[in-house]
Every structure is written in structure tokens, then in C-alpha cells.
């Protein structure tokens, strides 16, 4: 019989080793969980300390704080223009019409697909036709990229205009985007 495992002494050694390992594993597991909670608690109090320091400084100088708030409000307003909370069809149509007229293009009817929701924003495809010269179309799209609200051309199909070989007809599909506020994230 094997002296290490088969004898009573071998069995006792095995029992001691098993007890040590089991105790260490269970103890270490509990300790790790407690340490993790302490680390989280320390991080939370540090964050709160820093936040309180910052708020104290802000409260001590309300004029400077008001200026900072105004600056952030201004930035927010710019981003709200680029990524509005709602699609305002009348504004989109008016913007397209004005831009087309500026470049001497004829704008056809504007159609809209159903809104498609993502996690934080929704998109809606707008479809319209433009008719005019190549250079005018190029200029239109150069300016169109700069307009607010934000949009991206998804498809563009250009053909020669019927009855006018010098003009082109561009069928355009553009995705407009809007921001989904927290309470509007139903998707």
C-alpha cells in the first residue's frame, strides 16, 4: 500500500492539506469581497470630497459660477440646434427650399420615411428631388453639409433631366437626426 495516501498518517496529511486549502480559499474569497467594497467606498468618498470642494468654490464665487453656467448653456444651445430633440418638418423644408433657391435649383416634393430609433438618437430619412446644373448641385451639397440640424446624405441618384440634356435630376435620400432625451428612449 502506498505509504503517503494509504496509511493513516497519509490520510491525516491529506486532511490537513485539504483543510488548509479550503480555509484559505473561503477566507480569501470573503476578504476579497470586503476589500472590493472598501475600495468602492473609498472611491465614493473621494469623489464626494472633490465634488464638495468644487461646489464650495462655486458657492464662494457665484458670479464666476454664473458665467461658467452661461458658457455651458451657450454650448448646449449650439448642440441642441445641431441635434434637436424633435424633427421640425416646417424648418427642414424651409431650409431645403432656401438653399435650393440660392443655388438656382428646383426642389421637388419632400417625402419622409418612418423614424428609426437608436439608443440615444433617432433618424428620419427625407427624400426629395433637385433639378439643375452640375455646378449648382455641387455647390448645394457643399453648403448643405454646413447647415443645421445635422444630416447625412444616404443615397444620391443622378440622371439627365428629361427634355433638357444640360440639366440633371438628383434623387436624394438624407437622414436627419434628433436626440432622444432620457424620457423619450422608448426604443
Amino acid at each position, binding site marked *: 500500500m502506498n505509504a503517503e495516501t494509504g496509511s493513516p498518517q497519509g490520510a491525516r496529511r491529506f486532511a490537513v492539506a485539504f483543510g*488548509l486549502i479550503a480555509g484559505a480559499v473561503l477566507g480569501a474569497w470573503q476578504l476579497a469581497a470586503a476589500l472590493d467594497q472598501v475600495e468602492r467606498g473609498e472611491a465614493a468618498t473621494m469623489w464626494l470630497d472633490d465634488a464638495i470642494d468644487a461646489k464650495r468654490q462655486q458657492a464662494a464665487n457665484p458670479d464666476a459660477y454664473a458665467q461658467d453656467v452661461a458658457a455651458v448653456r451657450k454650448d448646449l444651445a449650439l448642440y441642441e440646434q445641431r441635434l434637436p430633440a424633435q424633427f421640425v418638418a416646417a424648418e427642414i423644408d424651409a431650409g431645403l427650399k432656401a438653399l435650393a433657391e440660392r443655388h438656382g435649383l428646383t426642389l421637388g416634393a419632400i417625402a419622409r420615411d418612418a423614424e428609426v430609433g437608436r439608443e440615444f438618437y433617432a433618424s428620419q430619412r427625407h427624400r426629395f428631388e433637385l433639378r439643375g446644373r452640375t455646378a449648382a448641385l455641387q455647390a448645394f451639397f457643399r453648403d448643405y453639409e454646413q447647415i443645421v440640424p445635422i444630416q447625412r446624405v444616404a443615397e*444620391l441618384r*443622378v440622371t439627365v433631366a428629361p427634355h433638357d440634356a444640360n440639366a440633371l435630376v438628383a434623387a436624394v435620400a438624407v437622414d436627419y437626426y434628433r436626440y432622444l432625451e432620457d424620457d423619450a428612449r422608448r426604443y
Partner: protein
Amino acid sequence: MTSPVKRPRSALVLALLAFLAAFLPLFAATVYFRYREAVLATEAEALERRLAQLDAVLAPIGSIDQLRGRMLARKTIVDVLGRPQAGLEPALGLTSQLPAGTRIVSLEVEPQRVRLRLGNANDVAMAQMLERFDRAGFSGTVAELAGSTVTLDARIDPARLASLPATVTP
């Protein structure tokens, strides 16, 4: 008088003793850290109350954290969706550079590809348009001539288009 016989401990008792020897020091440390966790939680509650008081003082002016959070949430999306869209202008420019005698059937532009179909075309016109696609900055152009219609299909590579000098098409 006989001396007492020392009976060897059973394996189960030894295992239990070994378990306790390994576990108890770690358990003691765990108890300490659980106590520390409770102290930190109490401390955090007091800090949160203090923070709420300061927030109440600043509330009439506005919460800069909330405003900044809303602004950054939009900015993150705008930075992605608002990237310049490459390919539209150079693709439209191709329609004014057609080889003599050919006519445009259609030009299709999508975010990553451009396709041009020309009528009244031949091998020479196809070669000319291939060269113009490359000069316009499109990548991997594939051309196919079927009858008198040539189809050119290319990828839009924003990096390559950005590296080219800006051209103005009349």
C-alpha cells in the same frame, strides 16, 4: 503507574483544525474591512447631505454638472454623425468630365461607393473614365463595358479624397 496513552487525532479533526488555522486570520481581516466599509458608508451619507446643501445654494443659478452632462451627451453624437461626408462633390464633378460623345445614364452615390453608368461608350471612353475616377480620388474602380454602356464602380475612401488638393468644377 502507567503513563496515559496519547491517541492520535482523527483525520476529520485535523482537517477542521487546519481549516480554522487558515480561515480565522483571513476572517478577522474580513471583519475589520466590513467595519471599515460601514464607517465609509456613514461618512458618504454625511458628505452626500453636505453636497445636497451646496447644490441647494447653487440651484437658483443652475446646475453646471447637469447642463454639462446634457451638452456632452449631444456632443458625443454630433462628433460622430457630423463628420464631413466625402465623395459627393467629386462624384458630381465626374458628370461634367464625360468623354466626348458619351451621355450619362445614371450616377449613384452612397456613403461608401460611387457608380457611374455611361451610354454611347466604347473601350476608349471607358479607359478615359477610369483615369478620371482615379484622378477624382476614388479607389478600386472596376469598369465593365456591356454593349455601348459602361459601368464604373468605385469605393469612396475619405482619407484619399482628403489628401487630394481641392478642385473646382465649372
